[in-house]
């Protein structure tokens, strides 16, 4: 199964190990955590240790991020897609309402988002399409950068020069989930389209950083394949990026397929306890990395995980194109959001938990493309 995985990524040696209670207790308190620590914390046996894991995760989060949660919101530029991803409501064979924002609409959306006080924005599209290709993104980024302190993208994989173009336009980061690191499942899930190229996607964070991005966000779509395998791969991928691009920011997200979404049934359903366990585990082994949770998750999960591992969250998300300024939603959304709270209500929740919502944690002064060249 893993013959296509490069050595630096392959988690095979840490899969299927048996862990004693002593191993797990040691892992929770590890001083220098490694792959084995993570494997112990992800193991089914560790499920009995959720409380001590949560306590340690909270202490670490508090030490590194204080009592703050960074907030951002996504903006869907286009939902045109020729992809054939089984799990997605926007796949080319879905009867979706397609739309792409023109400049006027983009300004309108940005004004609406700005009114909500956001200073950090993620721009999204589907796969590469003539309607929303690199020049379109370049233009959209430069417009968004007039409004926002920080603009990043979550779009299709690109070449290094293309990433450079976008970095020059003011884009500081790229989020790109591998979806699953299991090449066999990956092939099955991506029925056609450019996204079928596993390696092209896997290498895209490298290209993005070489192209001048300051940060990359990675993750696996939990539910597609064995989540322990995928979590170990995410960790190894993050470690690889941190080692090779030491100036780069790396963050990890935990998108999860929920059974009720879009009719797709996850083969490896990840329930709430498992998701929490994975987040705590990741926080313990990667104390300094921002861990991100989106509005896909129900509010109870979000409230419980804020500051307990999670340091960054999206809020007030609209997953339709034009969703922020339009009264009627005309396009189809990519997935259903679970936490539909408005900002004041969400911020009140954070404050009640002793956390400060932070809208601006970046300044446009730091928008220059990064350089990672080694001499």
């Amino acid at each position, binding site marked *: 199964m893993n013959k296509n995985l490069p050595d630096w990524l392959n988690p095979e040696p840490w899969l299927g190990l048996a862990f004693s209670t002593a191993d797990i207790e040691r892992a929770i308190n590890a001083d220098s955590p490694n792959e084995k620590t993570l494997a112990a914390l992800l193991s089914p046996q560790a499920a009995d240790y959720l409380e001590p894991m949560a306590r340690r995760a909270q202490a670490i989060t508090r*030490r590194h991020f204080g009592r703050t949660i960074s907030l951002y919101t996504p903006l869907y530029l286009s939902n045109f897609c020729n992809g054939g991803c089984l799990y997605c409501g926007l796949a080319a064979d879905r009867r979706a309402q397609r739309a792409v924002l023109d400049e006027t609409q983009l300004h309108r959306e940005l004004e609406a988002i700005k009114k909500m*006080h956001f200073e950090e924005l993620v721009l999204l599209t589907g796969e590469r399409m003539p309607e929303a290709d690199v020049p379109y993104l370049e233009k959209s980024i430069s417009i968004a950068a007039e409004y926002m302190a920080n603009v990043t993208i979550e779009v299709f994989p690109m070449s290094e020069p293309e990433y450079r173009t976008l970095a020059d336009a003011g884009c500081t980061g790229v989020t790109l989930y591998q979806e699953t690191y299991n090449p066999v499942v990956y092939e099955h899930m991506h029925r056609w389209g450019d996204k079928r190229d596993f390696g092209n996607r896997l290498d895209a964070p490298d290209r993005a950083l070489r192209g001048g991005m300051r940060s990359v966000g990675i993750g696996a779509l939990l539910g597609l394949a064995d989540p322990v395998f995928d979590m170990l791969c995410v960790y190894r991928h993050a470690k690889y990026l941190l080692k090779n691009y030491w100036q780069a920011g790396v963050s990890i997200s935990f998108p999860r397929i929920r059974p009720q979404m879009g009719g797709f049934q996850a083969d490896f359903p990840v329930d709430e306890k498992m998701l929490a366990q994975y987040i705590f585990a990741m926080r313990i082994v990667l104390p*300094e990395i921002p861990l991100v949770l989106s509005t896909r998750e129900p509010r109870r999960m979000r409230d419980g995980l804020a500051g307990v591992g999670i340091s960054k969250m999206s809020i007030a998300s609209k997953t339709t194109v034009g969703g922020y300024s339009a009264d009627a939603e005309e396009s189809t959304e990519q997935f259903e959001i679970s936490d539909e709270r408005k900002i004041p209500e969400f911020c009140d929740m954070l404050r009640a938990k002793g956390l400060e919502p932070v809208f601006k944690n*970046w300044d446009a002064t730091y928008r220059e493309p990064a350089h990672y060249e080694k001499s």
Partner: protein
Amino acid sequence: MLNIGDQKLGSRLFLGTGKFSSTRAMIDAVKASGTELVTVALRRFNREQAEDDLYGPLSELKNVRLMPNTSGAMNAKEAIRAALLGRELSKSPFVKLEIHPNPHHLLPDPIETYEAAIELVKQEFLVLPYIPADPVLAKRLEDIGCAAVMPLGAAIGTGKGLSTAEMIRIIIRDANVPVVVDAGLRSPSEAACALEMGCDAVLVNSAIAAAENPAAMGAAFKTGVEAGRMAYNAGLMPTSEVAVASSPLTRFLSTSD
């Protein structure tokens, strides 16, 4: 009184203002700590939204001076830009120069910091650089006109205290500018320890912001810093490998039979 350039400060405790659960909690801690110098990140200046802005509420505090910092800068060029912007917004002569190209451990880049310091001194800032605990770098920064040096006690947010104590001792011994331990401190006793060693001040953020009761911890640090400074001034007794007899062993040489 602590002199930094032409500025006089009554407190030897400097405070970082990020990481608090709310602006209120931050202000309460600042007040309880008795600090007269707080550092605020340019990336947390938010003139668009008062609720999210750290600068506004801080600038209203009496007796507290602001020191914009360049946190977020990956290199000298960005730090200089951030410093200029910070000065424009805050009108403060101070800048906490921090350049940490790795956004995760936030350890300072000595080379870029040195480059930026040269330029910022030229631009007449009071430059307080956050640096590794490197005695040679500290001297080089002093030589080019930095108003103080701020070596780290341990990596930011680790709470590992004065892990770099041996190097800090050398920095203090050699320095002609104030030495401020920045980053890593967890407890008031460690702050006291730094002052006892001869540090001129300490800069604390996480230890107070992440404490169960930040305002109470701010007050505890105030006392710790004061105790440490008093002890330094009082002169600690020397340490010795062997027990020192309280009556001299050589008295017989000066007594007659």
